[in-house]
């Protein structure tokens, strides 16, 4: 609430005609987390789209009936692409490509914006009232522009300008070309968004562009884009978690009161225990054993969990990981001596030998194999994490194995990436295993995963 008050106060003291200023002021007062800025930015673009200037200008004309030049001036940049719409039909594809190339080459923002508008008019085929998302138009436009070829041409051209041709120069011009193409893409995206706002209104569009924050994305149903976002979010997340846990451990530096020592000490003060003595702390570093299902549907979830657990492995006395589909294999060695857990996770699919028969998850068989080969290595300090949706393809459950694992270890946790309402539907047999687990946890997003792992350490 106090954020709203701040925002309202902020817009009172600034120059409202400066769009960038309004944007950064609202961001400063309403957003309190750097990761949320892109979401804010999209929302701002939707609700304060440049197109909206038209109606504001009209409004001002009506109310104040003054300075029509000023009003049209303000709406100028917004209207230009619209007016250019008619002219662009006469523009051939080659001319457009040329315009684009020139704009990209010179890195001129205005030209780029105009070229993007042309491209959208020509290729996106935005039809009023058509109920498709912005991504559809974006895809159509980008496909027609053949940006990969354009990027190559651009980098070759700039390389030809310089008369050196060493690897560094080549790489730099490639990156420069890539950056400019990215700029073009975001211009096109903005252009499409603005046209959609015009068509459907801000409210409707805001609903369709509403994107979850990276840590709230459902891991099981993430698309490729969201997956990339998740990968990016994972590293800072695991770093933060490690710092927090290390701190918590350091703060509990004192163990319980050492009565014997304290009494001995109190002799010098006539038996009054002034100077308390403490036992040295026993940091309870658990040994973590991860058993992960990496068959198709839940593979990505297993990867994230393995990554996170290994990234903070310094918080555990030992981390061992096993992956299975219908066979089971240990993958701990992939993580040893590797700086970046992501690398190791990427190698799992290629190197782990997890398919024994038909490549459909068989929890019962996997647990049986694990029990046979590793059960004698479990101690009362081992915490077992089982990752999977417990969709057993109607194989035998072998519940007794889990019961024995529970008996041998400190605790067994089951992390299920499916929403609770899906549990036990179809071939999911979570409820059969549940009595032998300390807890069965729904773990669909990074946030839930982080919370769980944080509790564990």
């Amino acid at each position, binding site marked *: 609430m*106090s*954020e709203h008050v*701040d925002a309202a*106060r*902020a817009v*009172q*003291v*600034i*120059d409202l005609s400066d769009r*960038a*200023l309004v944007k*950064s*002021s609202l*961001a*400063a*007062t309403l*957003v*309190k*987390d*750097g990761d949320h*800025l892109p979401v804010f930015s999209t929302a701002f673009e939707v609700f304060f789209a440049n197109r909206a200037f038209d109606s504001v200008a009209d409004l001002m004309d009506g109310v104040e009936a003054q300075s029509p030049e000023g009003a049209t001036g303000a709406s100028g940049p917004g209207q230009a692409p619209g007016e250019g719409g008619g002219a662009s039909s006469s523009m051939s594809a080659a001319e457009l490509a040329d315009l684009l190339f020139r704009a990209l080459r010179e890195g001129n923002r205005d030209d780029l914006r105009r070229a993007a508008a042309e491209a959208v008019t020509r290729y996106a085929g935005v039809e009023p009232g058509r109920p498709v998302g912005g991504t559809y138009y974006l895809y159509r436009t980008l496909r027609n522009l053949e940006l990969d070829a354009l990027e190559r041409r651009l980098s070759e051209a700039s390389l030809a300008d310089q008369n*050196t041709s*060493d*690897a*560094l120069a*080549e*790489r*730099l011009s490639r*990156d*420069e070309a890539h*950056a400019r193409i990215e700029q073009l893409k975001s211009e096109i995206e903005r252009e499409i968004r603005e046209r959609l706002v015009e068509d459907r209104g801000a409210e409707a569009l805001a609903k369709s562009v509403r994107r979850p924050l990276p840590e709230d994305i459902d891991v099981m149903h993430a698309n490729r884009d969201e997956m990339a976002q998740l990968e990016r979010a994972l590293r*800072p997340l695991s*770093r*933060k978690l490690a*710092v*927090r846990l290390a*701190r918590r451990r*350091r*703060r509990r530096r004192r163990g319980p009161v050492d009565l014997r020592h304290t009494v001995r000490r109190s002799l010098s003060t006539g038996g009054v225990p002034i100077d308390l003595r403490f036992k040295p702390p026993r940091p309870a570093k658990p040994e973590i054993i991860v058993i992960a299902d990496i068959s198709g549907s839940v593979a990505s979830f297993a990867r994230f969990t393995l990554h996170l657990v290994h990234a903070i492995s310094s918080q555990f006395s030992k981390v061992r990981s096993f992956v299975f589909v219908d066979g089971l294999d240990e993958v701990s060695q992939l993580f040893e001596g590797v*700086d*970046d857990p992501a690398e190791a996770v990427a190698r799992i699919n290629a190197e782990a030998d997890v398919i024994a028969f038909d490549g459909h998850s068989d929890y019962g068989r996997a647990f049986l194999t694990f029990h046979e080969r590793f059960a004698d290595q479990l101690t009362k300090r081992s915490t077992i994490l089982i990752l999977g949706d417990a969709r057993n393809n109607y194989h035998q459950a072998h519940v007794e194995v889990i019961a024995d694992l529970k008996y041998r270890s400190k605790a067994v946790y089951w992390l299920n990436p499916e929403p609770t309402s899906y549990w036990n539907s179809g071939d999911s047999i979570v409820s059969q295993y549940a009595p032998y687990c300390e807890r069965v946890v729904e773990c669909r997003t990074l946030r839930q995963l982080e919370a769980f792992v944080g509790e564990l350490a």
Partner: protein
Amino acid sequence: MSALDPREELAKRLGLLHVPPVRFDSPHEIQKLLAENDYLSDEAIASVTFLADRLAKPVLVEGPAGTGKTALAQAVADSIGARLIRLQCYEGLDESKALYEWNYRKQLLRIQAGRPEGSAEEWAHLEEDIFAEEFLLTRPLLEAITATDPVVLLIDEVDRVELETEALLLEILSEYQVSIPELGTVRAKQIPMVFLTSNNTRELSEALKRRCLYLYVGYPTIERERDIILARVPGISAVLAEQIAQVVRSLRTLDLKKAPSVSETLDWARTLVVLGREEIGEQDAADTLHILLKYQSDIERATKELLGRSKPVA
């Protein structure tokens, strides 16, 4: 305007005789002033600083290490001719280091000096006496509050203190006052500008965030980085600055353990100037990469990706 201006409101609460004048007229003025002090700001930085002044609120500056968060506070202080009071946070920072402490040695001396008389009213008098401001050691936060000359308060790396210690800051951030049990409440004699920086190693509490304006300072755009290099490194050619900015941008797109910061970029630029280079060749880059990157694995990766070599040059 029916609602009270936030500055007036705060001044009234603090019991100031008159509302302190605003420091800046517009965000553009801030950009200009900061540029004069060799700090290249962007629109977001300028407008948040402007709002901080107008709304009399602290600014929480967050972002990766070495992107000019601390430098911003310094530059703002320089540009308004104020003294910078800095509180460096660390784990275990407490009240006596951040706020105030009683100078007990001096208090003891005072007690001893007044001992011979020793009557009851003497003692009451003495007790009142030893808990006076004279015996108070001011630490950065209290100093910023009690200062009469213009000051900018910088609370650096606030994410390093424990969650519980954060609470110490809340009173000063929202009310610009400090409560001392023996003395009462010390109110600010002016409205100082306050900057907090954080490297985001942990989530700060909602209470703290709510009291601040938020500014995220990320890595600069390539144009701004070039301008920063030009402004901060004397005698550098425009071509070289442009190239340096390009190389650094490419490095930041790689998946490195620690991406080069702006301050490291500047170090690199200075090195190349000292070496008398007008352009970066492959060999120069390979020889000086260790100034930008601080991990051997990063250097190896960068050499491989950027220079197309498999082995780094030792």
